């Protein structure tokens, strides 16, 4: 039986994650007050700026920053944001890029590519770079949950990316 991965996409804006298009995705639990999460929210028609919320840690499990809809909250490591063509970059105090968000405009839509190397509160790698896409580790929800496709092959859709 053919294996496949799937997500939901928007006609207007998508993120590239695990070499897949996704209208939005969530890693971790945003309702937990202290643990890692990363939310790339759905961008509605009429808007072109991706909305990122996150609580990210370094490889030792130390809090780096909190973002809520692109607005910096807790920032114990004194991270700085820097505008780049088509997006924004977050740098640590030494100037090393922690997260880069860059949006490409098509004729009728937008694609956002991310670059990041972020860890959870235990120091486990949750987001890393792989080519032109980020690679997420652990469970991820792809914006919408859906039943298997019509047409016979079912039961192996990889909603939850496990590496």
């Amino acid at each position, binding site marked *: *039986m*053919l*294996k*496949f*991965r*799937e*997500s*939901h*996409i*928007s*006609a*207007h804006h*998508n993120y*590239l994650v695990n*070499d*897949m*298009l996704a*209208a939005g995705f969530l890693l971790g639990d945003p309702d937990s007050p202290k643990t890692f999460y990363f939310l790339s929210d759905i961008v*509605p*028609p009429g808007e072109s700026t991706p909305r990122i919320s996150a609580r990210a840690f370094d490889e030792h499990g130390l809090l780096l920053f909190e973002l809520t809809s692109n607005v910096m909250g807790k920032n114990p490591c004194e991270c700085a944001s820097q505008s780049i063509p088509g997006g924004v970059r977050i740098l640590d105090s030494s100037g090393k890029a922690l997260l880069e968000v860059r949006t490409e405009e*098509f*004729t*009728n*839509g937008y*694609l956002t590519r991310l670059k990041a190397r972020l860890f959870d509160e235990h120091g486990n790698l949750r987001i890393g770079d792989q080519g032109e896409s980020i690679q997420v580790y652990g469970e991820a929800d792809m914006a*919408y949950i*859906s039943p298997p*496709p*019509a*047409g*016979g*092959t079912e039961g192996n*859709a990889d909603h939850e990316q496990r590496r």
Partner: protein
Amino acid sequence: MKKMSGENRDFDGVWVLGDYRNYFQNRVTLQLISKGKALAQKLNTKVSVIVLGEQVHQYAMEYVAHGADVIIVAEHPELREYQVETYTALLARWVEDFKPEVFLAGATSFGRELFPRLAKRLQTGLSADCVALDVDSETGLLVQTTPAFGGELLADVVTPNRQPQMATVHPGVFHERPHDPEAVGRIIYPELDVLPEERVRLLRSRRQQTRSINLEDAQVVVVGGRGLGSKEQFGLLFELAELLEGEVGATRPAILPEWAEEDRLLGQTGKSVKPKLLISIGTSGALQYTTGIQGAETIIAINRDPNAPIFKMADLGLVGDATILLPMLLEALRKRL
């Protein structure tokens, strides 16, 4: 609706082959998505678009915006250029696994090469150059209407015993749905096995350098046929088209003696047009040709034969020798414009 029985019961879904080359001019995939959506509704299923290539994100989004429910993608550097053996093997594997009920492609050079091979591989039927598609309300079978017997007849073809039911469809026959930025869909990335070895290796490709002929979007189209008698007479059509700010089309009998380029061919094996005004000069009105002008709002026909079939579909007919009437028409227009 009675669906087919026995071994065919497992098949479900309408598939459209995504031909995104020259995307913003070549709209046949969007037209097929629109028609596929209507067929899928009758069959109570979904319409999926199959996209093979590299960096195809934009096209996947476009297809969703134009009505696709599902996009099935193979992204790989070796799929960047169309290679018939690789594409055939990959599609055959997917059809065998996903089991679509209907599989459609545009009757472009791409679809015309790939689909016969794929149908042979899948041991199913294929109707080529269809001009209409529908679902039979009794059997649930796809009714594929295609010109037959040299284009003199339209035949309704069904594939009752094999699946998927495959057809290539003439560009311009169906209307695309408008772009909907609020649309959402599912995208599926099947795991790619080792790609089959191509016996033919593509070294390079380059675009043919020809003047762009935009017949499909022209508001005025002037068409010439055998009745013009010579390349010189046919050449007058270009002046007429220029005066009317239109484009020149041709029927097959005018293409064969090289009075016009192949790109100007209208009809079953050429382009389909939807102008506000179409002037058909020296054309008899054979079905192979009129298939491509059915979308014209107003048709004026000039032919010396009062019984020519073109007069049956013309809004205004002039019976006379095109070689005499055309210069007169040009002279009158020059004075007025």
